[in-house]
């Protein structure tokens, strides 16, 4: 198990990893950026909603 993982990490951190297999990993990173951006936005909404909920709670008590 260990040597395979090692090889994988060596591949991951070599200079041209992102250019390997026709630069497919660039597409992976781009789609991940989009996902993380949307996730960040959702987390912000989550926080806003939490504030509103707390306001309601304090309002009721």
């Amino acid at each position, binding site marked *: 198990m260990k040597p395979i993982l090692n090889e994988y990490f060596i591949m991951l951190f070599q200079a041209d990893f992102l250019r390997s297999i026709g*630069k497919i990993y660039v597409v992976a990173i781009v789609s991940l950026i*989009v996902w993380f*951006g949307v996730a960040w936005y959702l987390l912000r909404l989550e926080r806003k*909603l939490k504030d509103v909920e707390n306001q309601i709670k304090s309002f009721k008590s």
Partner: protein
Amino acid sequence: MERLKNLFSGLKWWKWAVLLIMPYVILMGFLVPLGQGITSITPGSTATGANINFRISAYNSQFSPDKSNTAWLKYHDLHLPAKLVKVLSPQEAEVIFDIPVLPDKSVKFADLSLIINTPEGPAVLPSAVSLRNIALDSTTIINEVWSDNKLNINKEANFNYPFRNLMAETIRNIYFHVPLWFAMTFVFMFSVFYSIRYLRKKDINDDQKALSLIAAGMLFGILGCITGAMWAKYTWGQYWSFDVKQNMAAISLLIYSGYFLLRKSLSDPDAKSRIGNIYSIFAFCMLIPLIFIIPRRYDSLHPGNGGNPALGADDLDNTMRTVFYPAVIAYICLGFWLAELNYRIIKIKNKIESHETYSK
């Protein structure tokens, strides 16, 4: 089962569009293979009169010696058939040419493209070989001639995305980067609609709709810049190459960020909404020339600039359209979804605040 039903009940059609189209875009975007393409050729230069073996390596190809493969060197309308295509491996082949003098003797150097035609379809390497066009001495006899007959090129056999040399697999980014900009523009367009409606009717809900739409549009714009920079690094060589379109997109995002600054800096709620909405209309009026007009008037690394409209047949073929347009629709609907959630939260918040002030 009941819980699942509750989860989806009352979802508007455009939310269904996001839920259904996004997986389609991701699956098609990643799983449909790329067409075959030639990645390298050696030697890269030659002279007329030579009997020369080019060794080519290809990407995603299934060369086979059992099938009929043909190749040509192409110079403008003229082409020269290969004497022999020798397949070495599925990804490697040797093509052998006898190169006669070009009919136009005044040409000293010519950039030739290589076309290889296999049963799976053609592959082209533009500017593959640089040819020195020199007159031959009488001892070399070449029977081949440059002709301008129509080439018999096989149709693409499979459902493939086109192979472009610089881009290779990153052509798939068209489904993840470009729709961000489409969605941003569309969402901003709707925000302008609500801004105008606010200024006419002074309904605070319209102001908040415009605000949340602009927030969602900004998210897409920022993501578009980051993904574009990432894509640029591995195709144009730099994260930010100060390309016209990159710069103008950044400027228009800065203009839009002024909208939030303006709202934050004004304390009077009425002035805040009024000035903010006027600003957003002007910001949109700046966005259109900055992103859609100015980059077309200058040389840009982005496709479709320097005069030609984008999304022509060179940039987007029909197989890509089957994914690209659904992707645009899904991203636009996603933008509206994000904006709507934001709007609903703001609305509840305002209701509570007005209630609080009322009860005090």
